[in-house]
């Protein structure tokens, strides 16, 4: 099969690293060649962060480039919009609707665009938007936004529930596993 590309975008500190590692373990379990490219260091401090996950028979580049993402899983609408040019022609965006103002907006130097989801759709993007923070909070912790998003995204993949569960269990620390499984389920059915 041709290589499939997933991007996980968000704000540093929102938990995109764990989400990418769950995906990595899921795809490894399905027998694919997998590459995951992460962001560490300075950009993690509340900046815009992006993680790339690629899988297929043989994966070379660790990164996803413009026009290539089959899926963009986004923790924040503005970040989905920022990386929109990376979406493949038939790609899909799964985004949380929770708005996190960047510093230039907080200081009044820039405006947060209104109705970003509508604007992305107007630009031709296929967007599935939902309130992942509410789902995560309902599951027991606002920090589980990452897993709630994965649950929602799982609708668009052909992997079994068991495969997702295995990936969660092999990635998430044991003391958080039940809460995260719940966040995954609620996200999937949200």
């Amino acid at each position, binding site marked *: 099969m041709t290589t499939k590309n997933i991007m996980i975008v968000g*704000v*540093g*500190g929102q938990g995109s690293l764990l989400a990418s590692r769950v995906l*990595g*373990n899921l795809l*490894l379990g399905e027998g694919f*060649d*997998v*590459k*995951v*490219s*992460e*962001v*560490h*260091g*300075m*950009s*993690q*401090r*509340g*900046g*815009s962060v992006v993680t790339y996950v690629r899988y297929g028979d043989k*994966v*070379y*580049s*660790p*990164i996803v*480039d*413009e*026009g*290539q993402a089959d899926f963009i899983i986004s923790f924040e609408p*503005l*970040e989905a*919009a*920022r990386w*929109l*040019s990376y*979406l*493949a*022609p038939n790609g899909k965006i799964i985004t949380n609707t929770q708005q996190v*103002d*960047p*510093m*230039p*907006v*907080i*200081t*009044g*130097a*820039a*405006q947060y*665009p209104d109705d*970003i989801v509508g*604007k*992305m759709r*107007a*630009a*031709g*993007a296929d967007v599935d938007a939902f309130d992942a923070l509410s789902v995560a909070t309902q599951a027991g912790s*606002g920090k589980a936004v990452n897993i709630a998003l994965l649950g929602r995204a799982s609708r668009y993949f052909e992997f079994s529930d068991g495969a997702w569960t295995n990936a969660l269990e092999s990635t998430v620390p044991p003391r958080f596993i039940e809460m995260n499984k719940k966040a995954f389920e609620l996200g999937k059915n949200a």
Partner: protein
Amino acid sequence: MSKKQLMLGNDAVAQGLYDAGVCVASSYPGTPSTEVTETLAEFRDIYTEWAPNEKVAFEVAFGASLGGVRSFCAMKHVGLNVAADPLFTMSYTGVGAGLVVVVADDPGMHSSQNEQDSRHYAIASKVPMLEPSDSRECYEYAKAAFEISERFDTPVLLRLCTRVSHSQSLVETTGRGAVTPKMYARDLAKYVMMPGNAKRRHPIVENRTRALIEYAETSPLNSLELGECRELGIICSGTAYQYVREVLGEGASVLKLGLVNPLPEKLIRDFADAVDSLIVIEELDPVIENHVKTLGIECHGKDMFPLCDEFSQNLVARILDSAPHTGSMRTSTPTDIVAIDAPIPARPPVMCAGCPHRGMFYTLSKNKVRVFGDIGCYTLGAAAPLAAIDTTLCMGASVTTLHGYTHAQAFGDGDDVKTACVIGDSTFMHSGVTGLINTAYNGGASTVIILDNSITGMTGHQQNPTTGLDIHGDPAGKIDLEALCRAIGITRVRVVDPYNLAECEAAVTEETAADELSVIISRRPCALLKTVKAKPPLTVNAEKCVKCKACMKIGCPAISMTDDGAVIDDTLCVGCGVCAQLCKFGALEVQA
């Protein structure tokens, strides 16, 4: 063979080093190299430590190598500038047991102050350098590096880059081999590098390079991969190889170089003979390209590809597409790029909510102090709205730059702007203390502010000599900053709590006015440390808030202003209370 695992490049290096029998590792953290040593530290049957800087770490590893065990040291590219002194002479002495040094470059400057290409160090110091292109190679090359080190009696550089260090791919591991320490062998002619001995060692280095070139011709680290297409041959290494394969597929003819110093000669000639034209595709500087041209072989390289920034598959595809001599290797670039119909505000990294640096930066900014900065989280103090830093050069340079700047003032009209410098606890230990000694020795009157957040912050919380804990988080020696500054001869040493703006204000105004050298230690642990318990978030009393925006001056990501007044994000606020001290109307309420 174990089953395939998905491993970060840095973790794969650590596993490779461990499986190769490494016994001693000493490093200073630096993105993107840090996780190699952190992962090694999880193996409790070997010795690992954080050293105060890269030069110290490298020399510790050298000592362990002389002592007879395989040893290791990791640093980021700019760290090798600090460790260059031991590197150049260690090339002459050679090693006892194997010695491997990771140097991690950062093309694209994801987390660095420059984009230097550390391959130049390998060439200049005449030391072999390996460059893996994915995690599997990180593992294999780490093991191979020790073998080369011992076979050729030389330290070996293992060059990583951000996309290799911080990407995960599949690795199969073999487990740790038997460790047999060598006996220490006294050899003054080899290890005492005074001129007479060094003169005799230099030809040995040159002979070693010739032997290494011979090795490079047939080493499995270099692979000549001839495909169906012979119109074009690509020479590349590291992550560029992955982009090339991504774009051109298996049909392309590629010479992949895993040993990037010294470079082979015959192998390159053979490859050039097998293809119609050559392109060298390498990130940053034309190191391989210059070598190929020195051999008298025509090739393209930096006439097509940029010197700046990291590459990607689209960049490689786009450039190859537009090149007239790429023949049948044409590729397609993506289309249908979409954007929303509105400007997208930038999201730069910011100081976290509750960051202890914020109170001090606010005070410096408010008092219009000219501030010389340093390397760490607090570099973010240069960003709006605090905009409190004028310079950032390299580790330790805040103290020294201020000292030099102060002396320049005597020669011009100058202005009467107060000055100070800021440096973190870890950076002060790294190389700030030598600058402070210089200022004290030469009678300078600087105001040096040590932003002591009790951790090495930006690289992700590593211990350092001021924290009292070692690399495992176990109790360790603790350097007393106040006592150290006094021992240097500084009498004006005071400690302030940066959450207390009145304290900061008094210290900054008094010390910048003082006519002698003074140190302000701004002490409060990083708000992200697990040992730091957050206080309840502040609340806004909407009736008292007059929307004056005084609380917005500190650039806290937890505070925003709406038409109804200030709003505090209670998922971010850690209750530091700095904003409440700015509110004249008592609208920001600290919860008990």
